[in-house]
């Protein structure tokens, strides 16, 4: 896209120990991050100094109020965040969960951020399949908030959607959630108010639902959750967010510092020939990761809401925002191995792709051989008959006519003239997925007051929350989604359906060879994706793009499932 070609700025992808915090001349909007002050000031995002700045943007600021957490507070007085702890629960148990302001240390600097129960990430909630637990939630952050239990097919009243399933929990107030763990696997929780701020500041955590069937997974030596994230900062600290509407609304807010489980230097230790089951979750605002366990063998086991029909060996794990994947990883030789995000980034100014790797973390494999050897089980690829039988019940619907269609598009107004002009003559190339922020300055300047991301129902002409599809419990619905490549700014979207599960039947007519139940799926630019949704869970729900800035810019619709 010409907008991107014109884009002044090189991608901001750096490994955690080599972060560039540069700004162009005349762009030293260098207001220090004075945490004792009660006002934030805009600082432009860091960028690659090789790139020239697009003329006309030198003095632009996003038309939004800048926000940083905890302003007016002394950061050193805030409680220090602690790493994630695991809460093992049984059916009927009750836990307390509090969202509060905490002190986080990132790359040696302290920041006021948010956390659940003072932890980063939030506590790992672990419960058996079929259990119901109670969560007494209390809000101690600076905004109203809710908790959305992502992927759980729970009672609609507890889905955490303000204005649909509950009122937002006001500051200092509480709400009691009841969670039903219908499906085994990996899930996560996060706010559903101003996600682009609250989640980015650290409000996220995992839930592992242990299967009833003890043979559900192959035996492994270890289990580990990996929560992938990024955060945008410069030498002075965190780049402010838009308080009243989001910045970075065209592409979403890419971070330039990678976080795994909230850390910039994630380390994991195994013995030689250990098999580890990793539960991977992408909680970034917008970044899609291409995760590689260098030096290891990887077996793909499961995703959002189930195992795959068949296990298979893979080399890498592309994971979109809010998706989860379950993989088993075997290191056969001792050594030190990076976990990387390995991408072909785009430099639109140069007009080229270039390989880029971020080191997300490091795995240390000791000389000591594994205590219990599960390598034989690892090398055996399972046919998951339970999943195959489950999916088989839906095969009669695979070729049914499309019930509903959606087109993914956007409209803009009031963007800076330089952006509008450069976009207007953009007729070049858009990638299927944006792996890096190819246009940091233009992206930063685009706000939710200027950009509306749109889910368009071509059958009715309705868009976003004007759409309210009605279904009956038990309906099996085919939804065809087309991500239009010829819009003002096409972009791949991670599409999330609340409260139900779906299969990705095909992309551009190519059938999916190995089905798995999902709640979030990537819709690449230019592609037509057929989803088959089982409407099993009654209530009023949402579907939306899970890029925080796109969601806040309108990209959501409502649907009802009647009992």
């Amino acid at each position, binding site marked *: 896209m010409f907008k991107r*070609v*014109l884009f002044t700025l090189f991608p901001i992808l750096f490994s955690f120990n080599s972060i560039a915090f540069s700004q162009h001349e005349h762009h030293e909007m260098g207001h220090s991050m004075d945490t004792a002050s009660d006002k934030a000031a805009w600082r432009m995002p860091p960028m690659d100094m*090789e790139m*020239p700045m*697009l*003329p006309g943007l030198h003095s632009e600021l996003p038309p939004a109020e800048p926000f940083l957490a905890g302003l007016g507070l002394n950061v050193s007085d805030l409680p220090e965040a602690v790493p994630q702890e695991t809460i093992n629960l049984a059916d009927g148990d009750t836990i307390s969960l509090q969202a509060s302001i905490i002190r986080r240390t990132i790359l040696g600097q302290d920041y006021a951020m948010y956390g659940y129960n003072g932890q980063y990430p939030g506590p790992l909630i672990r419960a058996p399949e079929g259990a119901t637990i109670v969560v007494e939630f209390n809000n101690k952050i600076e905004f109203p908030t809710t908790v959305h239990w992502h992927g759980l097919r729970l009672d609609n009243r507890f889905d955490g959607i303000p204005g649909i399933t509950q009122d937002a929990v006001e500051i200092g107030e509480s709400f009691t959630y009841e969670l039903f763990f219908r499906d085994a696997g990996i899930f996560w929780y996060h706010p559903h108010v101003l996600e682009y701020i609250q989640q980015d500041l650290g409000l996220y955590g995992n839930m592992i639902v242990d299967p009833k069937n003890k043979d559900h997974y192959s035996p492994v030596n270890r289990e580990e959750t990996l929560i992938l994230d990024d955060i945008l900062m410069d030498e002075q600290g965190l780049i402010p967010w838009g308080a009243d509407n989001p910045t970075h609304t065209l592409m979403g807010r890419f971070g330039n510092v990678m976080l795994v489980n909230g850390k910039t230097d994630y380390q994991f230790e195994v013995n030689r020939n250990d098999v580890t089951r990793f539960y991977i979750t992408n909680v970034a605002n917008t970044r899609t990761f*291409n995760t*590689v366990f260098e030096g290891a063998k990887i077996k*793909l086991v499961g995703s959002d809401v189930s195992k*795959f029909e068949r296990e*298979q060996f893979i*080399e*890498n*794990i*592309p*994971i979109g925002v809010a998706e989860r994947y379950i993989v088993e990883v075997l290191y056969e030789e001792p050594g030190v191995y990076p976990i990387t995000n*390995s*991408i*072909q*980034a785009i430099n*639109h*100014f*140069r*007009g*080229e*792709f270039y*390989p*880029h790797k971020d080191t997300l973390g490091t795995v240390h494999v000791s000389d000591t051989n594994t205590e219990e050897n599960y390598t034989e089980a690892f090398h055996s690829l399972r046919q998951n008959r339970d999943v195959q039988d489950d999916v088989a019940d839906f095969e009669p619907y695979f070729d049914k006519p499309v019930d509903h269609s959606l087109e993914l598009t956007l409209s803009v107004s009031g963007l800076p003239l*330089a952006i509008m002009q*450069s976009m207007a003559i953009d*007729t*070049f*190339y858009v*990638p*299927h*997925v944006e*792996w890096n922020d190819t246009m940091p300055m233009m992206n930063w300047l685009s706000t939710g007051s200027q950009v509306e991301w749109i889910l368009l129902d071509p059958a009715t002409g309705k868009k976003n929350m004007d759409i309210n599809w009605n279904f009956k419990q038990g309906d099996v619905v085919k939804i065809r989604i*087309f*991500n*239009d*490549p*010829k819009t003002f700014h096409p972009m*791949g979207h991670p599409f999330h359906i609340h409260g139900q599960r779906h299969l*990705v039947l095909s*992309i*551009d*007519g*190519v*059938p*999916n*060879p190995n089905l*798995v139940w999902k709640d979030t*799926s*990537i819709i*690449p*630019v*230019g*592609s*037509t*994706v057929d989803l088959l949704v089982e409407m099993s869970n009654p209530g009023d729900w949402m579907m939306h793009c899970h890029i925080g800035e796109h969601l806040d810019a309108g990209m959501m619709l409502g649907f009802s499932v009647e009992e």
Partner: protein
Amino acid sequence: MKSKHFLIFSLILTISAFGVSASAFVSTGFDLNNEKIFTCKEPGLSYYSIDLVTTKNIPGTGQAGGKAVMKFDSSPFGISITKDGSYRHLLDIKLGNIKNHKKGRFVAWVTTPSLDQTKLIGSLDQEYTVSGEVSWNKYIVVITLEVSTPEDGQIWQGPIAFRGMSRSGLMHTMAGHGPFEQEPCAKYGYY
């Protein structure tokens, strides 16, 4: 030496051809002399599909043309991505309007824009179609006329009959162009 000439020739023609063929990307089909050569069922596919333009070097191909349609190769992740982050595409190639072609066989290849790597896609069948996988983000599709069936690892020997560049080939440097006209190209390594 001969094949190198062909390579360079193909690149030049490919790039020059794009100046006139780019508009075809926005159409939903491809008409040539009223013959429907390829229609993209899914609306987005036409955006990424590659027009194959004749070099007019081969008798019977002067009015011919074709398409290479890019889809994601099947993958459990939906999007198909290699370990180094490249897209893994399935290319469906189809030629049409070829007249009185008798000698040799048409063979499809892909090569990088810098021509430093080449991959055999395969020989076209009697319907002038072939499919294959490509794992590069920017590449040129080349259809040559060969006297024998090539094998993996070989480079083409025959003349180039058709060529076209992936849509990503439309990305090129802005140094010294448009709003960056004042930016010296040499600063960015372009001379």
